[in-house]
């Protein structure tokens, strides 16, 4: 049967070939002095002869002549001097190399730790950035720097190597060249002084360079190289569907606990997974019954999980009632074939009390293999020992002692009436109170103190610890045991309650954030919701960065906080690389801000920055998970708000375009119409051969004249409208007489009035009003025009003026059909015309021009319908 090529493998191959990522070649050796740097430089020279553009990023020659000679002819990039605590340390200048863009860069000492203040804490991260930019890299590495081998190396050589490189970097390397040297020759070179030894580590190095060690290390490195070849061969075979000894698809699972052994377990699992070519998971089970862990332990779990991820495993945190239940359930559901656990470290009796996880796993595992790994715990690296440490404030212990004293006093006072055995209840009560209100520690203290006090004060003989009646021993034991149990249980209930409250608070916070974000429709509301909620939950100051082109700019931040230039640079890095950056991450960890890219299905929406109010606090792993949830919500909300804003802009644009089209249509029509009559009349008169009589000629001429007037008015209206729109309306205010204004207006429209009656009603003694005479006359002319247009020719027009407080009110009323009530405000809009039968001419600009002019004077114009039919326009103008 033919095997089809594995599509996943094919895809991986294609991706690795297609990517513009640079290629990494590692020159690997098993100890210092085997000649890795030398080999790298030789290879570089070979490439140089082939014409490849090479730059030396960082090469450590240790002042060895032969190595330094090899540097000649190569372009050495000067090192960047990083200042740290008064000392300047030379580091690789990543930016210079990125700017130069050589085809190949040489970077020595892959596992080196950069000085604080550098962009990345480790050199392999710098190399990763170079590779991402498409630059090939040659680098050197010793086998003991591999993360997964770290504990094995420690075991073999007794030396703990602190600078490690995660295995994924090695896995992704395109080529590994093993630089081998027989240990005897290496030792010879050491004697000849050809191997670099930093002075401080002299003694450790001597211990390191023992033949047994070297041989073991050599074997490790050779074996690792062989495994890699094996992998490559397998990959090759898979793409070509060559039948081979495919191992069954294995899946490994390792349980992580706060136990210091956990890291070793993770590394072992990784090695096992390598050998079996299996996927592996690292799981931490959070017990429902004991959710609250000490901070140090939580941090250790977080670090272990992170290590597992770096080593290539998938991590998960589960919640469950018991460890073995949760683990087995997950294992069965996900086809795990082997589970790795650590040998129990606790003494037998403890296990007998609370059960051994390993035993339970073994019994219930069914067909899953259990690997039990042993090992001594790592040498302590500043970790808090598992020993008990008081964590309640000291004053609570005093209070519990005081309560015991209180109970004793009470007991003494009723001693005569009651048997001592009954007085035990008082102490029980004290223990319960202490457990509920004061905490586990103080309640334990109350237990012990209670028993002692009981013995001392209340059991005959008083004031001694001796007991006359040995039955009281049982009472003591009983009191002690019951108190202990009660205090433990109560304290646990209390802790659970606190944890529940904490969890509920977080869930509520997330719910509240979601709810607020759903309600927020514009960017500012979204930003404010984010600040309020996220800032409160994480106790941090928040900044939101939104994209502007290829970079991000600060959009908003918590009140009182403005991101600095450096912080903006961190945000930009996070945006460009779509990875978290800043405090608590791999990149720019010295920054004060932690930046999280906000991403939705459509892409990057922006960057969220968090800055702790007190420097030094990092987010716990749980908080980081919670932050992811919050960040995702925020990203969605920001995206929505941005889209809403874009939609609104599009709408506005559309409306503006519509208006413009209407304007052009209207003007085009209204400009041409009068010309029809004018041109028509003139041409008729021109071509008249005498057949037109005097009257006809007169009519033509009068009609043409009236139309010319109309055209003139229209042009004037358009000009006024343009001026108002452009804000170029300049008011020349002077004291004006209202009747003067109206008189001028009436004079202008006299021709159109055609004998219509105009009733004028002014209140006497109207003051002079500060107005622009010409413009207000224009307003009145427009209003009169409207009145004439919209009412029958035999109906009068009323003009009124009166004083109202510090305003003068002018009204123009017609007896036409009036204005529909719903349009009373819209009549003042541009191009508005009341729909009515019959041909009403005009562009509909008149009233809006009036409005513009009146409002420029600081006045008001509005319309109402006259009782009995007709429309009334009122203009209020301030006197001053």
């Amino acid at each position, binding site marked *: 049967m033919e095997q089809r090529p594995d599509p996943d493998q094919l895809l991986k191959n294609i991706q690795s070939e297609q990517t513009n990522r640079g290629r990494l070649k590692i020159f690997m050796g098993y100890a210092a002095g085997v000649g890795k740097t030398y080999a790298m430089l030789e290879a570089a020279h070979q490439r140089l002869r082939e014409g490849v553009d090479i730059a030396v990023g960082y090469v450590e020659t240790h002042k060895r002549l032969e190595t330094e000679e090899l540097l000649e002819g190569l372009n050495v990039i000067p090192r960047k001097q990083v200042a740290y605590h008064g000392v300047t340390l030379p580091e690789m200048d990543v930016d210079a190399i990125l700017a130069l863009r050589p085809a190949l860069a040489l970077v020595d000492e892959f596992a080196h730790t950069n000085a604080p203040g550098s962009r990345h804490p480790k050199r392999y991260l710098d190399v990763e950035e170079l590779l991402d930019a498409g630059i090939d890299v040659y680098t050197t590495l010793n086998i003991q720097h591999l993360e997964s081998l770290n504990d094995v190396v420690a075991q073999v050589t007794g030396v703990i190597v602190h600078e490690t490189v995660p295995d994924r970097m090695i896995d992704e390397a395109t080529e590994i060249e093993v630089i081998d040297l027989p240990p005897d020759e290496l030792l010879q070179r050491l004697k000849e002084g050809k191997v670099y030894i930093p002075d401080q580590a002299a003694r450790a190095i001597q211990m390191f360079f023992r033949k047994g060690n070297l041989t073991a290390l050599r074997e490790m490195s050779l074996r690792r190289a062989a495994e890699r070849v094996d992998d490559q061969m397998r990959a090759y075979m898979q793409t070509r569907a060559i039948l081979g000894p495919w191992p069954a698809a294995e899946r490994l699972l390792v349980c992580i606990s706060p136990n210091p052994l956990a890291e070793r377990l993770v590394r072992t699992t990784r090695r096992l997974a390598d050998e079996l070519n299996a996927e592996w998971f690292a799981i931490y089970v959070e017990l429902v019954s004991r959710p609250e862990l000490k901070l140090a332990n939580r941090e250790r779990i977080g670090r272990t999980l992170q290590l597992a991820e770096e080593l290539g495993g998938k991590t998960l945190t589960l919640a469950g009632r018991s460890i073995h239940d949760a683990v087995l359930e997950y294992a069965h559901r996900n086809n795990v074939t082997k589970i790795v656990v650590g040998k129990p470290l606790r003494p037998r009796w403890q296990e007998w009390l609370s059960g051994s996880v390993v035993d339970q796993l073994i019994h219930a595992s069914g067909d899953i293999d259990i690997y039990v790994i042993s090992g001594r715990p790592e040498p302590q690296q500043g970790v808090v020992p598992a020993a008990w440490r008081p964590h309640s404030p000291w004053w609570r212990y005093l209070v519990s002692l005081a309560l015991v004293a209180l109970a004793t006093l009470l007991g003494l006072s009723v001693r005569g009436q009651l048997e001592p055995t009954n007085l035990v209840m008082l102490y029980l009560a004290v223990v319960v109170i202490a457990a509920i209100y004061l905490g586990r520690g103080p309640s334990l203290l109350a237990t012990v103190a209670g028993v002692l006090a009981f013995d001392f004060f209340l059991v005959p003989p008083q004031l001694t610890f001796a007991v006359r009646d040995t039955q009281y021993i049982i009472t003591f034991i009983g009191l002690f045991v019951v108190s202990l149990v009660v205090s433990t249980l109560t304290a646990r209930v209390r802790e659970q309650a606190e944890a529940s409250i904490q969890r509920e608070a977080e869930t509520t916070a997330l719910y509240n954030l979601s709810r607020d974000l759903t309600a927020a429709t514009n960017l500012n509301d979204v930003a404010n919701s984010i600040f309020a909620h996220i800032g409160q939950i994480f106790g941090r100051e928040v900044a939101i960065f939104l994209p502007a082109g290829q970079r991000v700019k600060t959009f908003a931040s918590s009140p009182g906080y403005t991101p600095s230039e450096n912080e903006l640079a961190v945000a930009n890095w996070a945006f460009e690389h779509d990875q978290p950056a800043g405090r608590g991450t791999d990149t720019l960890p010295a920054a004060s801000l932690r930046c999280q890219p906000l991403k939705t299905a459509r892409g990057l929406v922006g960057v969220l920055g968090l800055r702790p109010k007190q420097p030094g606090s990092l987010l716990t792993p749980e908080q980081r998970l919670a932050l992811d949830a919050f960040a995702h919500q925020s990203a969605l909300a920001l995206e929505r708000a941005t889209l809403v804003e874009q939609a609104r802009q599009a709408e506005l644009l559309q409306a503006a375009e519509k208006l413009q089209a209407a304007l052009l249509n209207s003007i085009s029509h209204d400009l041409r119409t009068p010309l029809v009559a004018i041109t028509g009349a003139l041409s008729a008169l021109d071509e008249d051969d005498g057949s037109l009589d005097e009257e006809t000629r007169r009519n033509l001429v009068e009609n043409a004249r009236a139309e*010319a007037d109309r055209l*003139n008015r229209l042009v*004037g209206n358009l*000009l006024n409208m343009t001026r108002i729109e452009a804000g170029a309306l300049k008011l*020349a205010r*002077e*004291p*004006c*007489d209202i*009747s*003067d204004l*109206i*008189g*001028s207006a*009436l*004079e202008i429209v006299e021709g159109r009035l055609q004998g219509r009656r105009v009733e*004028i009603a*002014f209140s006497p003694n109207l003051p*002079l009003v500060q107005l622009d*005479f*010409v413009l207000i*006359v224009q307003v009145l002319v427009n209003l009169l025009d409207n009145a004439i247009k919209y009412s029958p020719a035999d109906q009068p027009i009323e003009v009124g003026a009166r004083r109202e407080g510090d305003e003068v009110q002018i009204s123009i009323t017609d007896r036409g059909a009036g204005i529909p009530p719903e349009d009373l405000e819209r009549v003042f809009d541009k191009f508005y015309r009341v729909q009515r039968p019959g041909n009403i001419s005009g562009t509909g600009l008149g009233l809006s021009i009036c409005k513009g002019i009146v409002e420029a004077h600081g006045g008001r114009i509005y319309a109402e319908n006259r009782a009995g039919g007709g429309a009334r326009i009122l203009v209020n103008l301030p006197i001053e």
Partner: protein
Amino acid sequence: MTETAPRILIVDDEPAIRRFLRTSLTARGYTIYEAVDGQDALQAVLSHRPDLLVLDLGLPDLDGVQVTRSLREWTQIPIIILSVREQEADKIAALDAGADDYLTKPFGLGELLARIRVALRRQATTASEPVFRDGGLSVDLSRRLVTVDGREVQLTPTEYDLLRVLVTYAGRVITHSQLLHKVWGEGYEDMHLLRVNISNLRHKVEPDPTRPTYIHTEPGVGYRLRAKTTGPLDEGVFRAG
């Protein structure tokens, strides 16, 4: 009084307007000369010595106000300026510089002819008429008597002065500032006073103060006392053909 037709110089850079003016005014018996810009106009006044100048304000080289000023330095020739709407400031400037009247484009021929007549009449009379009559209004300057439809009207001294100045400018426009200076003296700029007095005057003299027939407002510019009556000076020689 003159036997020859009055000579008018038309100054406008628009050929269409010049054509219209030439055609219409020639038909009315005037002799027409044309100039296309400011410099041209100044030359033409010197060479042709017209009786009246119709001057557009918007000339390409010198603006109408400058031409007016230059001319007024040596001649009292009547000047009627043509301007577009909403350039009140320019109109006022030209009138204050010495122009006699103005017309807003587009204008009708009747208006133009009326203004030309008034401007020429001012030139023609050497002695001022003692009694001004227009419709029902009669102002006897020598006796300081004002009657409307035969009824005597009592005016305050200021109101009478106002009316008197208007009468001397009868038919022509007078700007606010010219009015203020002539009635109240140099340095008076109080529009308030002017408006109030005009209002009072109208109430006393006009049959319908809200629709004045005599004292006419020129919006933004000033006032004009209408002189509708055609006197002996308006007849005759102008009706050619």
